């Protein structure tokens, strides 16, 4: 599948050239779909995902790498998309929150578990927590509560006090074990 959204002639990119910034042609795969876009070299990957590719499920809470809301998987590993240039993601496979559910819309066990556990409130932080949790469970399918808390400590939530989010991960662990996923 290819979704090409490249347009090098926008007023934005013209002005960027005038401002002395490079424009890069970027080729990435996001949630299984290939994208070819022209973006400012200074544009962080988070902005590329949200504004150029149009997947707004990934959020920006601080843009300096502390809050974790922008966490995505890059070639399967969690990373802060605000701390990378889009250009650095050339050729990678990226997974965002929109890529968690199955093709038929079936929720990923972590999504289902968060729903059951009342994991989030405003849910602005949710994309980062979900991607961090997925990364944790990929590597360690049976984490202790302490391990879950440590792994999630790179993500800030202001609403919940975290207990419900931790419970959501624990629920997902149980469900995934039972279903053998």
């Amino acid at each position, binding site marked *: 599948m290819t979704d090409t959204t490249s347009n090098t002639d926008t007023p*934005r990119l013209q002005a960027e050239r005038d401002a002395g910034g490079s424009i890069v042609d970027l080729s990435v795969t996001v949630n299984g779909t290939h994208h070819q876009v022209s973006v400012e070299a200074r544009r962080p990957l988070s902005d590329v995902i949200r504004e150029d590719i149009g997947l707004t499920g990934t959020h920006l809470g601080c843009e300096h790498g502390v809050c974790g809301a922008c966490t995505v998987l890059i070639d399967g590993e969690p990373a802060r998309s605000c701390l990378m240039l889009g250009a650095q993601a050339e050729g990678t496979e990226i997974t965002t929150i929109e890529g968690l559910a199955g093709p038929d819309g079936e929720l990923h066990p972590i999504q289902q578990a968060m729903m059951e556990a009342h994991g989030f409130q405003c*849910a*602005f932080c949710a994309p980062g927590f979900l991607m961090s949790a997925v990364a944790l469970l990929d590597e360690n399918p049976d984490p202790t509560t302490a391990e879950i808390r440590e792994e999630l400590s790179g993500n800030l939530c202001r609403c919940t006090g975290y207990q419900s989010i931790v419970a959501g991960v624990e629920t997902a662990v149980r469900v995934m074990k039972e279903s053998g996923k």
Partner: protein
Amino acid sequence: MSSTNRSGLVGQSVQRVEDDRLLRGNGQYIADLDPDNVVHAVFVRSPMPHAKINSIDASAARRAPGVVAVITGDDLKDTTHPFPPLLMLPGLYTPMYHALSADKVRLVGDPVAVVLAESRALAEDAIELVEVDYEPLEPVADIADALSPSSEPLWEKAGSNVVMDHTDTFGDIDAVFAGADRVITERFECQRQSNQPMETRGSLVMVDDDGHMTIHNATQSSHALRWLVAALTDKQSMGASLKAIAKNKDRRSSFASGMKSFLQSNSDDLKDQDNSGAAAQFKKDKSFLGAMNKIGVGLLAKESYPTVKAQDIGGGFGAKGSIAREDIAVAAAALSVGRPVKWIEDRIENLMDGGQAREESMTVSIAVDNDGTFRGLKVDMVMDQGAYPGFPVGAPMISKMIKVMFPGSYKWDAYEIRSRIVATNKGKYVAYRGPWANETWARERMIDVTAAALGISPAELRLKNMIGEDAMPTAMITGPTIDATMSTRKTLEHALTLVDMEQFEADRAEAAERGHCLGIGIASYHEAAPGPPNYWDSINPGSGMLMPEEGYTTIEADGSVVIYTSQMPHGQSHETTYAQVAADELGVALDDVKLVYGNTDKTSFSLIGTGGSRGGPIGGGVVRKTSREVRRQIAEKAADMLECAADDVEIIDGNIHVAGVPARGITFAEVAKQAADDGAKGDKYGTPFEYGTNYNGAGDGGWSTATQICVVDIDLGTGKVTFPRYLVVEDCGPIINPAIVNGQVRGGVAQGIGSVLYEQATYDEDANLQSATYMDYLLPTAMEIPEVEVHHLETHSEGFENDFRGVGEGGMIGAPAAVTNAIENALSDYNARVTTQYLPPTKILELAGQISPD
């Protein structure tokens, strides 16, 4: 009331309706909107805390690549009105100021111009090219500076940096203090904090070809924003406004009739208002009357008022209840450039001026008898409101809440509070979750200080003085009625049964062996959620008119249930809880109910929106009342169709039938169609069944209460504090959704723990912000926040059909007191006296005598 239609959803932790879209990443927050041709706004902000603006040269910025326009403070003076004084209290000076500063800056971050460009990055390039000639003024960095008569006034017309000084006295304070065995005095200081929702503020403003403005905004208060933008933008001369009014008679008469009905429905509150505040304001600044006249006439002349919209909002905690200067500037910019203008605040801006709170100094004296009986209470409070007052709710209103609530759940013979508000060169003071919470902190802290002085245990001293059911009904010394819903004593008694003190003492001894200090702390309180009818009048006469909210339940022609609310959900799960309430009343399934919110074209006017613990009691009460009435209408119509009495109609799972005969039922769609065919058409939404009511929660109890007890563990080697145990016993009356209530309590406690151990909006002695990033303003993580046990009591307010009470603020209100009390208790061997709310590791080790202050 028939109970036969209940689906039994209220009281269950049903899964959230919101979650499917939010967990898929399909939510729609303000930053997600990206209309064609949008321009990005970035504010030029002052790097100086306090300075005169001699000149601004934006010519280079205007020529910069991608720049569409640069609007300065001077430009905005021509097109917008200043923020008017809204709450005029006796002894208060309220400044008027424009969205952008043109003459003077009053904090680091003060907006002086806005750049519009093709991308946020290009706009950030251009703001560096705006040359502002500042002439520095002496900064006013803290309360001590502001109280000094020689400090440079932020507001010349105020005459000094003390903008309010007012004393309220209840009872014969002098006699009570003279007659008590002892008077104990301590001063408590709370540091500046910040709400810090994970989503920053933001606004996207579009003006269509007909001049109609649509504002997408992450606001807790959509209608207030709508009216303020209408009032302050698109400024015309008085003559032009009057001409427009004369030309359009319809508008004039409809406005006049709207005004008349508002005056009529709030006549008692209006009569009660104390006008001495306005008189005092007039004395200091006569121009406000003229400005308000111009604003009023300008409003009357408007062709149309903006539409404010929001779907998902990423938290607020009060900060998004403020109408920002940036909101006005962005709207004015959209009017001037003819393209959609989008402003998404970044985190640095948010930490600078997205809302700060809680900086209060309180000197508290307790007059007490040797047996522990509380006699009198005196408080001398100074609040630091920063550079600009929060609008519409800022330090003045909150000072009144503190005044009313400071005596807490205890009996006093006399009480006096002096409230001063000072202006300093810091971020604006806004309402932050339980805005009055420092009354609980200082009072509960002071009770522990008193207990230590008297040699009585903190629990015993509280129980000795706390008002119990035997004394009810009664009233707080400050006025509000106390009924059974003021169940603080029950929460304390229950909480004490959950703690094994012998085990705690054993743990404490064991910890001491390891160089750790354990301590236990209690905090008990009640909060107005929404408070009894006379609560708001005790705050300020006439302010009861802030309370009502109008909402509707409708049944559309296809039988679907649609609820309209003026609430602005931003994490509280209204779509779920309101559906639970409506579904129970109507006898339908949860997902048969749809909630419409966040669009001022579709919802009724509300001054507040979501805030002040209104979502459950007021908004939820509206849903219950209106759904109940619509159910009655449906039963009546169905009775005709089923040929039975309305009282015999039963509705289960959407099946409307004669009681006991479900097989011969009819559907909502059938009844709605019949009603529509018979000509039923609601006035507001045109649906076959609809009912709306304006509800103020009056008469339905009104207090939520809680006791928090925590155990802290202090490592003397590192000053780090952990929580072996944290428990909350809360009573918010009947619970709609326990999982949601637990989430509110735990989230509040987490913020309260943050307040004590991690969070400080830090300024240096020259009022330069030191905490402008998340590396320096520290929100606690999952490693810092413990598990919090939540125990529920459900005291009912007898005799009232709607009894939901708010629970969003209590966790935050109690936690700083419980935690600081526990820390002082832990360090009792070191004679520590905790008088500041902020206790970072350095302070902990200073209190423990391990280190000396630098």
